[in-house]
């Protein structure tokens, strides 16, 4: 039973347009959510996070939105660049310390030049 679901295995977007990656979760105890980015042959790198007390967090071209009632979060990348092409993992954690963070299956983003 996957507690964190990324239902789109892949997404293709034109350079300069907006990329929207979606994530759903089932555990209402999750109180911290993160997005990681992974290039081939590298480990995931932390991208952006949001606490459950907020509904939006922005960092440059990246914005994460959290809808607690729908148990849904999304990552917006605008404008998208070819270097954004990677696999994006959504992750969620309950309680302090980040132990046992649960990851989604990932969405592969292709940004076409």
């Amino acid at each position, binding site marked *: 039973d996957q507690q964190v679901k990324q239902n789109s295995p892949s997404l293709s977007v034109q350079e300069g347009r907006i990329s929207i990656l979606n994530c759903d979760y089932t555990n209402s105890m999750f109180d911290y959510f993160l997005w990681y980015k992974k290039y081939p042959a590298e*480990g995931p790198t932390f991208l952006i996070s949001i606490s459950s007390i907020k509904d939006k967090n922005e960092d440059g071209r990246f914005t994460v939105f959290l809808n607690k009632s729908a148990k849904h979060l999304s990552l917006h990348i605008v404008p998208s660049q070819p270097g954004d092409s990677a696999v994006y993992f959504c992750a969620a954690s309950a309680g302090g310390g980040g132990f046992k963070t649960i*990851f989604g299956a990932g969405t592969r983003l292709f940004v076409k030049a």
Partner: protein
Amino acid sequence: DVKVTQSSRYLVKRTGEKVFLECVQDMDHENMFWYRQDPGLGLRLIYFSYDVKMKEKGDIPEGYSVSREKKERFSLILESASTNQTSMYLCASTEGGYGYTFGSGTRLTVV
């Protein structure tokens, strides 16, 4: 920048072999983790450690053990490798916050 180093990028082992995957971090982090990444399943936690000689089971510990004799080093051990343990293994560390720093991964193939 904190660095997490995994000793091998690629490994090929035979069924039944005992396999050691090594991970070293250089920023004095308390917490270290081992995940495996499989297509369609994302990253699944095998074991984690919050202090030297301390370990906790993750979601899929069966067939694995770990060792943390020094703060900077966290080893994953496959006691008797099986083909269903063919996977990408990722080590991570964190100071105590939520953002992990991952190593580059070890792609293990068990034949």
